[in-house]
């Protein structure tokens, strides 16, 4: 018990310490249930799980930036002179410029915009990796084709309907066999990335996942529905059963009352609240292995303005929410490791258009964050350059790193799944040192 108390005192966040599952179980093993109860957090009042678990596999937070995120605003190649020549009204000023809107240098070539200032601590701690001039081989400039093939994880195969993360889950044993829910999409509908995953549901708001109606009959009604949907076809059948079991799970966790660790403050936005819910579920340690969260607003055809306008606000929300997740989950003690990634279907034209925006392009950035991510740098595979002669189709940043290389390395090294030819069919990934 002294360990518990010591940790408790050391940490600024009493809520968090109390719920570390290994400590909880250690306490239980010591035989003092009363003492254990004293460390049961208020927002996690009833969870008592029989199965012990010490996994080396990370929980995966997968973020999709929908709309085609402009990598040249998210990670600014300020030392490439063609950047400023191409972006006369929507460039982020060099880090050595004057004024509050200047970039924040990541090295002698790339900078974050001020909107991503909240990600600097993770970058400085070498826990945040930015991969630049990345994307997919599929050169579609259609949002929907490009998103689809990126989420599926194999370009140009319309017969493949499952997503890469769904297939990862389908090809690895559950971290906890009794877990009713292995993965969730913070969405009203299941994102393509997760399709195919067992015990995987879209749950738009995990804080409010209940059947409703009379408490006296709720169990009988859930039993009715379980039996009724046992005759349904897949995927309805499994989803309904998972839903009834997840009702029981989430009833135990008071997500609304969750208090982030380390003073982290999630923005009160759709994305911020989604990450906060994911954090609560991860710390509840109930066997969640993956969460898919979408963030929109990246389709900046007009009035892009990364310094104060729409792109600024979208990036600010993105950076603040992921920054809070970093402080809350990755910097604090957590029952399991966590890796986060963020991708987008394509980047945008290097040259701005006549509406102070940018049209659909190709290469962009992706992010990976975690204690075992080899971060603190911008990974490039030789910067292809922004001079017109070096652009894809004369207009776009080239794709020099297939996003699947990064994901596959994480799937293998952090999610403990060696079935890479199943997760990314037909792709032989190059291990690029994204993990450590």
């Amino acid at each position, binding site marked *: 018990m002294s360990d518990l108390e010591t940790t408790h005192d050391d940490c600024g966040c009493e809520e968090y310490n109390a719920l570390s599952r290994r400590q909880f179980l250690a306490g239980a093993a010591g035989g003092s249930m009363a003492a254990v109860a004293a460390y049961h957090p208020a927002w996690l009042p009833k969870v008592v799980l029989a199965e012990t678990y010490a996994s080396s596999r990370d929980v995966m937070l997968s973020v999709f930036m929908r709309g085609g995120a402009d990598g040249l605003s998210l990670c600014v190649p300020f030392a490439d002179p063609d950047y400023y020549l191409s972006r006369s009204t929507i460039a982020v000023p060099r880090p050595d410029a004057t004024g509050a809107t200047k970039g924040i240098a990541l090295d002698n070539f790339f900078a974050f915009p001020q909107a991503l200032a909240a990600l600097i601590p993770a970058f400085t701690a070498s826990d945040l990796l930015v991969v630049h001039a990345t994307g997919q081989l599929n050169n579609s400039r259609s949002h929907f084709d490009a998103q689809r093939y990126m989420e599926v994880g194999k370009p140009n195969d319309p017969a493949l309907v499952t997503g890469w993360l769904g297939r990862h889950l389908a090809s690895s044993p559950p971290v906890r066999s009794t877990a009713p829910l292995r993965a969730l999409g913070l969405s009203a509908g299941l994102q393509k990335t997760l399709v195919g995953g067992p015990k995987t549901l879209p749950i738009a708001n995990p804080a409010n996942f209940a059947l409703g109606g009379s408490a006296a009959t709720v169990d009988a009604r859930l039993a009715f529905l379980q039996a009724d949907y046992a*005759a349904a076809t897949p995927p309805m059948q499994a989803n309904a059963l*998972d839903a009834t079991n997840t009702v029981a799970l989430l009833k135990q966790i008071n997500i609304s009352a969750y208090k982030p660790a380390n003073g982290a403050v999630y923005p009160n936005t759709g994305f911020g609240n989604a990450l906060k819910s994911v954090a609560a579920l991860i710390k509840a340690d109930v066997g969640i292995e993956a969460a898919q969260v979408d963030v929109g607003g990246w389709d900046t055809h007009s009035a892009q303005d990364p310094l104060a306008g729409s792109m600024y606000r979208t990036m600010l929300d993105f950076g603040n929410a992921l920054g809070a997740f970093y402080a809350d989950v990755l910097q604090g003690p957590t029952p399991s490791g966590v890796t986060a990634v963020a991708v987008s279907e394509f980047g945008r034209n290097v040259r701005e258009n006549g509406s102070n925006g940018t049209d*659909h392009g190709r290469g962009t950035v992706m992010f990976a964050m975690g204690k075992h991510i080899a971060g603190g740098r911008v990974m490039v595979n*030789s910067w292809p350059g922004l001079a017109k002669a070096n652009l894809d189709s004369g207009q776009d940043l080239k794709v020099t790193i297939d996003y699947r290389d990064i994901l596959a390395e994480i799937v293998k090294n952090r999610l403990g799944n060696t079935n890479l030819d199943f997760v990314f069919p037909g792709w032989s990934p190059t291990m690029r040192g994204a993990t450590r």
Partner: protein
Amino acid sequence: MSTAASSQAPESCVTPASITAEPVDESPGRGREPTTRRTLLAFGAAATAAVLLPGAASAQSTRRRPAPPKKGDFNSIIPNEVPVAPVEWASDTTRLLRRITMGTTDVEVALAKRYGFRGYLERQLQFQYVDDSVADTFVATKYPLLAMPADQLFAQNSGTIQNQLSQMTLYRAAFSSRQLYERMVEFWSDHFNISFNKVGYLKAVDDRDVIRKHALGNFRDLLFASAKSAAMMLYLDQNQSRAGAPNENYAREIMELHTLGVDGGYSQNDVAELSRVLTGWTIAGRGNFSFNPAIHDWKAKTVLGVTIPAGAVAMGAAGIQEGEQMINVLLDHPSTGKFIALKMLRWFLSYDPTQAQIDAVAAEYTRTQGDIKAMIRATLNSAWLRTAPMKLKRPFHYVASALRSAHPTVTGVAGMNGQLNNVGQPLFVWETPDGYPDKVEYWAGNILPRWTFGNTLAAQSAGEIIIDIALFQKGNTADATIATIDARVFGGEMDAALRASLTAYLKAGTYNAARIRETLALAFSANSFQWY
């Protein structure tokens, strides 16, 4: 790489990649095949059923229960079964009714059976002859802003407009007698998706003057109306596009989403060229279409092999003809008929229509020059319907169908409109121009919110939606109540297994209003009510 950058450019951190190599498809013949639609969720479904449902399965489930895979053997191929309708769904006419309405009611089934298959379809197609005065009066009284011209609407509160538009749409979907028309309004609202969040009051104008005006008319008129809709131009940045600085957004989506389809045979260069053709198409005033010759690109352009010769700004308003010519090229392109046919077949008949079906409906498009009614007639024939797999109701469809079956007294749908958010499909706020998905794998996991909604609806006993439980208590026995639910909720074709389980649930408690409402909620929640 530019020389200026090269001195500072970061070194490659990895060995040169095989990035440009074409991916090798290694899957055929290998031990593990990527999961396709046929094996979708097989692993998870089997595992879940085996692990979590000991004893919960009734006898009916065994016919669909796949064998559990061997441990760790994720390669197990378990066919994803096509959701076949219950044997009780035996009537051609009710089969048609399920496809062309927002849901069955006892009254509608009786009406359809009186008209017969062809008569009922024709009656729904000739919607202007179907009396809808009750709904019209309700809408005119409750949602007066929706009748305003754009230049008056612009001055109204945006939130009020959005509420009136959404509530009107839900009200008409649930209670209009012109049910096929409402199904087509929903179809085109996705095909020509516009998010209210980006365009505000103009969406209400588009809904009235584009979508509803042409929902069962001619696709050519519909496309032209959409192309000249201020809402669409604002939504896809067309109003920002000008000579020397074209914006490709609308030019891309009119080809990809509105006409040819993504594989319809256009290139990125066609997108760029069409965006030049359409420069000058913009918005005037508070929401009128206008062609502005001063910002039109008068140089020569070539789209889909059709060259438009250079013109001059002196040609003035005549420059609009370039865009109109190209829209006609799109309308006449063989890919367009096929793409609209595919989407219509998916909407009414099957997620995976056959090529023969697509060709047949596309032929009607060509023959009639885009007559929407003719395409629907070709899509909804009894032979195809008999073998069509069930389709999953999307959340909006689900809510509307439950409202129809509940047959409530309605004085407003503000609360029910709020429920659309809970079930995952609030109206007119899908951000991207592809519209709300219509795929089983997208919506199938979102099942709990439907059950919660079923509870909420069945419990309505006061306020703007009132379900008179006496209607369901006729006969005053459990069996009579189940018969009423069968007629109202399942069109008289409730499947035997559900009849047995609902009856058992109702009889397991005291026969009273509360228990009947719970039973009604379970009927709305049951698997077979989610499909059509």
